[in-house]
């Protein structure tokens, strides 16, 4: 046991927060979206989630024990979050070996290479996701159509995401209003009735998770509001300038991984800025980059790239927008 006297500078009062408590709080907040994805994609969603979580735990254990030879800390719950987020970001019919590669990249390259939880610059789940997207573009962009609880794991019908339909249609010279008939209504999209990856389809469930995390004070409102707000304003302006070429803000917020990214991935403690002002700069950066990639870039979806790019700016933001030191007097 630890018999040494612990000498530490103030503060000495512990609020009762711990890594585990916050991590499992996040997991609880993800439950509605998780249940939603089981409901929509059935067995496939279950297989993908279990594989992703189990591989994340396994690789974290193996790397800590045999390569880094440090204390094994797989119980802190961070591997669980990474696993679920990775599963949220992939189609529900993704082959198991690809998911395992994704988990290895997320934990191995995204987290452990930098020194483990707390030291990673980039969100591990997103590192895994983007690695898979670039490496296996066919498998990563064939989205199964939701068939409810009974749908199987493989051999499901595939369809495009609303964002991809719009992007492709505009590229081949069709007008936006004619394309709008081909995509689900806003209400359908909010309730998850569209093609997409497991975690991104159910806007309603993701918002439930956000409300829970805000009430429990696991996260503050700054990042999600900054991300969603900047996307809404920017696409609103573009839509007003030319409604035939740019889709409106509601469409952009409900489609793709925007809600998932804004609520669960941009808010990751380790890879987001510390001060409130920094969080807003960071969130606006993500929002603007997302719109730029979606509207002008080669990929239909840009949230994950936007978050990774802004992750890289976090140290810089932290230097220039410092949180007030405890006990420091206002100048």
């Amino acid at each position: 046991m630890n018999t040494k006297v612990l000498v530490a500078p103030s503060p000495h009062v512990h609020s009762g927060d711990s890594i585990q408590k916050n991590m499992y709080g996040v997991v609880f907040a993800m439950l509605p979206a998780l249940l939603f994805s089981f409901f929509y994609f059935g067995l496939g969603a279950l297989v993908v989630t279990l594989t992703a979580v189990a591989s994340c735990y396994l690789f974290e254990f193996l790397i800590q024990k045999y390569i880094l030879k440090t204390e094994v800390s797989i119980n802190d719950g961070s591997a669980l979050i990474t696993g679920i987020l990775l599963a949220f970001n992939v189609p529900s019919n993704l082959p198991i070996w690809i998911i395992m590669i994704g988990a290895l990249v997320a934990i191995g390259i995204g987290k452990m290479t930098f020194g483990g939880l707390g030291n990673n610059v980039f969100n591990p789940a997103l590192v895994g996701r983007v690695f898979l997207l670039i490496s296996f573009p066919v498998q990563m962009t064939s989205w199964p159509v939701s068939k409810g609880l009974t749908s199987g794991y493989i051999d499901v019908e595939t369809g495009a995401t609303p964002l991809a339909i719009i992007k492709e249609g505009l590229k081949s010279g069709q007008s936006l209003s004619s394309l709008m008939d081909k995509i689900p209504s806003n209400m359908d999209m909010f309730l998850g009735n569209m093609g997409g990856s497991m975690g991104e389809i159910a806007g309603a469930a993701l918002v439930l998770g956000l409300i829970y995390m805000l009430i429990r004070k696991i996260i503050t409102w700054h990042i999600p509001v900054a991300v969603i707000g900047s996307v809404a304003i920017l696409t609103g302006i573009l839509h007003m300038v030319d409604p035939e070429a740019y889709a409106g803000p509601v469409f952009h917020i409900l489609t793709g991984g925007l809600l998932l990214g804004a609520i669960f991935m941009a808010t990751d403690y380790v890879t987001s800025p510390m001060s409130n002002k920094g969080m807003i700069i960071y969130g606006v950066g993500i929002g603007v980059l997302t719109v730029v990639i979606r509207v002008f870039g080669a990929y239909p979806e840009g949230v994950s790239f936007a978050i990774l790019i802004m992750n890289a700016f976090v140290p810089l933001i932290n230097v220039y927008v410092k949180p007030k030191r405890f006990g420091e007097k206002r100048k």
Partner: protein
Amino acid sequence: MAGKKESTFINMVLVLFIVTLVASAALGGLYELTKEPIAAAKLAKKLKAIKEVVPEFDNNPSEEMYSVEMPTGDLLEFYPAKKGDELVGTAVKTFTTNGFSGYIWIMVGFKPDGTINNYSVLEHKETPGLGTKMEPWFKTTDPAKAKCSILGKNPGTANLTVSKDGGDIDAITAATISSRAFLDAVQTAYNEYNKQMEGGTK
């Protein structure tokens, strides 16, 4: 080091002059030496691309090459392949700007009746793993994927657009834009080829 030259104006001019003179002389000599192999290599590459897409021939198609200027200012190049005096096929170097990113250049070979003999992708900047599949995709011999292949089809009678747009060809999985662009390039080639044939000029 002993005998190091001072950095006087005359020394600097002299040294730089000698260095550049020797360098340019050496390069000029080498250029003359390698001129022929380089030209031969370029011709061989072009002939190889032509050979790939048309039936066997015994003339030199690049000598009988003629071209048509397109609205974009780029040239469509026609390489007639002949055996003896008979035209056995024409290789058309065609392009499209509808690709995912930039130009796609394709060499497509037509038999005299207008059916597609073969094609070869010369240059493109499509997404690796998706659009890059167009080289093998549209010439598959797998009977299960007969709808992917454009070989043996005549763009005049068959509808060379992707099946999503009501055409006869199955697009590359997850790369509809590149597929459309590819077929557009083939169609452009056929339209111009047809004009040339009907004109009876060649």
